[in-house]
């Protein structure tokens, strides 16, 4: 079957090239049968790539150790679930997953645009299939997932133990769906530039794709953080690792785009800026793939040294140069229809928010690439530590938090001083009240940014709650509906706005939790014999005895720890260490007791045969709110992106006179 798998990838490459040529020929000659043929070429790419993926899964499940990726990333004792996920454990397999998801996205684009965007579609198909041609060529000629080994080993090396984790089953596909989804807005943007259809049509077509991609990126980033927290055993969840940063950068720029696109829709402004953001977002998604595979930077997540770097770098340069050259030729047609009337207006706030998000993305890019740049300039690789990232992101994050609260309360075009005073009175009162506990927690200014996050968080939540309250009041008075009904109607009538506010609540939760965890977490090490008790950060830990077990797959040691506070025992934690036999690699199994206020996080460092357990304890305040914030963000964005159905009997407002206004 390896031969069929290889052939399927070659056929996918040929079909992708054909689709590019046929689509462009259709655009040049106006012969629409060629566009129909190109769209079938997209289906052909999907069919052949799907065939390759299923053959690869068959090889993994069938323990075909004559295939290099099966021998390298699976073994006889590996469970079937991890055999499925071993597909993206290898370099070639992960590229195959990328390609498969791209083919699915391309087919969805073809299906959903059968009766729309017909003049954009030739270019959209050409761009998507151009990217597909690149990936299939890499998979066919440079790094094949179907490469074989000789002699055939009796058993494989198995999957990296760090990847044998439930979060790792879903984290990479989620990120990849996000990355791949961003290729669709890029393809539509290029199509709009080429065809000079630069009205809002392309924006409408891509907004939902961008939000969905953003949702998947968000899920992927949160799952990855959760994996790092539970699996790496260092008490943290984010280390500004190059590959973590690679996922964050397109997320930040896509977030900027999702805000600035509203300015284009509403005011006809920021049209060039939006094009730049779409191009940058997709380029950064590819850059993340490049970082993971080039071997230029070391990372716990990277695939190590490989020869793929120059190919990806070449693709990124071609895309950047080609896209910006095209954009440059269309600048006159992209001039804004309106200008900024006031620096205190909704569109101005969106602009500030955009500058901060893109600035943050640039800072992360700079910090990530600094080792490479320093080596190129000085001949010495200087790594930027977490301190740099924390110093840069803290003030920008706080400013973003401020604008998250301020933005929705300021009207479009301009805001009067009287209006501002009235709108911000309640949030400012709440913020002033929040200063008291915040100053107490700040401990003489040592944790000023955590205190500022608490104050700004209180301010922003009050702003958002105020928006819901005023909206409910109007609905309640107008429609004679109950208060809960009025609350529900807000989401029915304007999902995008009120779903967006839910996302903002999630952002507040995450930023405040990150600030509190960073400032107020404590850590201590204990060495306890059976029956002994030690204390860290006010919590007592009692060694109740060790455990040892062994199966075909791994050897495990653990210790039972009774956890008490003030003499009240509230949990028994069992941190452990697994030693995976095939790889002779150890993996920490941390134990966590979570509550809304803090996590007690315990790592077993070592357990001697006489029962002496060495443990590291981390007490992380507010950790749960990082994960809850992630869930709130995803729920809010799903509300915002859900297709709206006009309520039965809802009439369009009369546009003739100003005296007969009907809100719905």
């Amino acid at each position: 079957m390896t031969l069929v798998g290889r052939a399927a990838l070659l056929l996918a490459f040929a079909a992708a090239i054909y689709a590019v040529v046929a689509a462009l020929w259709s655009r040049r000659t106006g012969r629409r049968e060629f566009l129909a043929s190109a769209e079938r070429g997209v289906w052909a790419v999907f069919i052949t790539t799907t065939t390759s993926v299923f053959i690869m899964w068959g090889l993994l499940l069938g323990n075909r150790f004559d295939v290099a990726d099966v021998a390298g990333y699976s073994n006889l004792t590996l469970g079937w679930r991890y055999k499925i996920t071993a597909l993206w454990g290898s370099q070639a397999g992960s590229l195959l997953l990328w390609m498969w998801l791209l083919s699915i996205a391309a087919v969805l684009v073809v299906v959903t645009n059968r009766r729309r965007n017909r003049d954009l579609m030739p270019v959209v198909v050409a761009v998507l299939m151009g990217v597909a041609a690149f990936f299939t060529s890499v998979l066919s000629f440079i790094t094949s997932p179907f490469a074989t080994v000789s002699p055939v080993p009796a058993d494989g090396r198995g999957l990296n133990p760090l990847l044998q984790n439930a979060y790792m089953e879903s984290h990479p596909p989620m990120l990849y769906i996000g990355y791949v989804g961003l290729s669709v807005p890029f393809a539509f943007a290029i199509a709009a530039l080429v065809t000079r259809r630069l009205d809002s049509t392309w924006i409408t077509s891509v907004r939902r794709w961008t939000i969905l991609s953003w949702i998947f990126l968000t899920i992927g980033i949160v799952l990855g953080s959760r994996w790092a927290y539970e699996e790496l055993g260092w008490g943290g969840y984010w280390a500004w690792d190059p590959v973590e940063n690679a996922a964050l950068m397109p997320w930040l720029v896509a977030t900027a785009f999702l805000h600035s696109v509203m300015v284009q829709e509403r005011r006809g402004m920021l049209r060039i800026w939006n094009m730049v953001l779409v191009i940058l977002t997709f380029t950064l998604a590819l850059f993340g793939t490049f970082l993971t595979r080039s071997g230029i930077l070391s990372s716990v997540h990277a695939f190590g040294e490989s020869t793929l770097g120059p190919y990806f770098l070449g693709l990124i340069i071609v895309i950047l140069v080609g896209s910006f050259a095209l954009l440059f030729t269309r600048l006159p047609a992209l001039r804004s229809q309106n200008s900024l009337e006031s620096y205190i207006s909704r569109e101005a706030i969106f602009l500030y928010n955009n500058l901060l998000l893109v600035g943050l993305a640039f800072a992360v890019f700079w910090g990530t690439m600094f080792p490479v740049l320093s080596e190129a300039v000085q001949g010495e690789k200087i790594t930027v530590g977490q301190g740099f990232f924390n110093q840069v992101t803290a003030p920008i994050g706080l400013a973003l938090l401020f604008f998250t609260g301020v933005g929705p309360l300021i009207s479009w075009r301009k805001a009067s001083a009287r209006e501002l005073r009235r709108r911000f009175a309640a949030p400012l009162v709440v913020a002033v009240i929040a200063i008291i506990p915040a100053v107490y927690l700040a401990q003489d200014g040592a944790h000023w940014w955590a205190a500022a996050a608490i104050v700004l968080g209180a301010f922003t939540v009050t702003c958002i709650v105020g928006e819901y309250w005023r909206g409910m009041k109007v609905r309640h008075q107008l429609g004679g509906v109950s208060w809960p009904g009025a609350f529900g109607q807000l989401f029915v009538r304007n999902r995008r706005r009120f779903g967006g506010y839910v996302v903002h609540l999630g952002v507040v939760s995450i930023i405040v939790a990150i600030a509190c965890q960073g400032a107020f977490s404590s850590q201590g090490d204990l060495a306890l014999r059976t029956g002994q008790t030690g204390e860290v950060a006010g919590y007592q830990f009692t060694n109740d005895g060790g455990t040892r077990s062994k199966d075909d797959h791994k050897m495990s040691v653990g210790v039972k720890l009774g956890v008490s506070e003030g003499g009240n025992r509230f949990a028994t934690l069992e941190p452990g260490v697994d030693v995976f036999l095939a790889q002779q690699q150890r993996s920490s199994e941390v134990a966590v007791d979570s509550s809304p206020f803090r996590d007690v996080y315990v790592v077993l460092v070592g357990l001697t045969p006489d029962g002496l357990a060495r443990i590291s304890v981390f007490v992380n305040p507010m950790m749960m709110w990082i994960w809850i914030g992630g869930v709130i963000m995803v729920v809010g964005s799903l509300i915002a992106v859900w297709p709206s159905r006009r309520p039965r009997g809802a009439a369009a407002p009369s546009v003739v006179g100003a005296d007969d206004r009907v809100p719905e």
Partner: protein
Amino acid sequence: MAYVLIAVISVLLVALVAWPLLTRQQDPLPAYQEDDRRAVEEELQRSLDAIREIDMDHRAGNLSDEDFEALDRDERARAVELMRRRDTLAGSEEP
């Protein structure tokens, strides 16, 4: 066996992509004008949504009377213009 399978898949794929060329299958839509009509319709919908939102913000006390009058007037003028464009496009499509 593998070679036969590859040959069959290849033939089926060629047939799949070549079919529109052999049968001269046209695009499902008769005219690209449909996209123009849809673009105006979507922009009109956004404009009507904006009018509703401005009205709601005014009722909620988010907008002063003066700001509301200015924003509402401009957005309604935009909606009227879009309706005219929509009617013009609809007229040009009629036989």
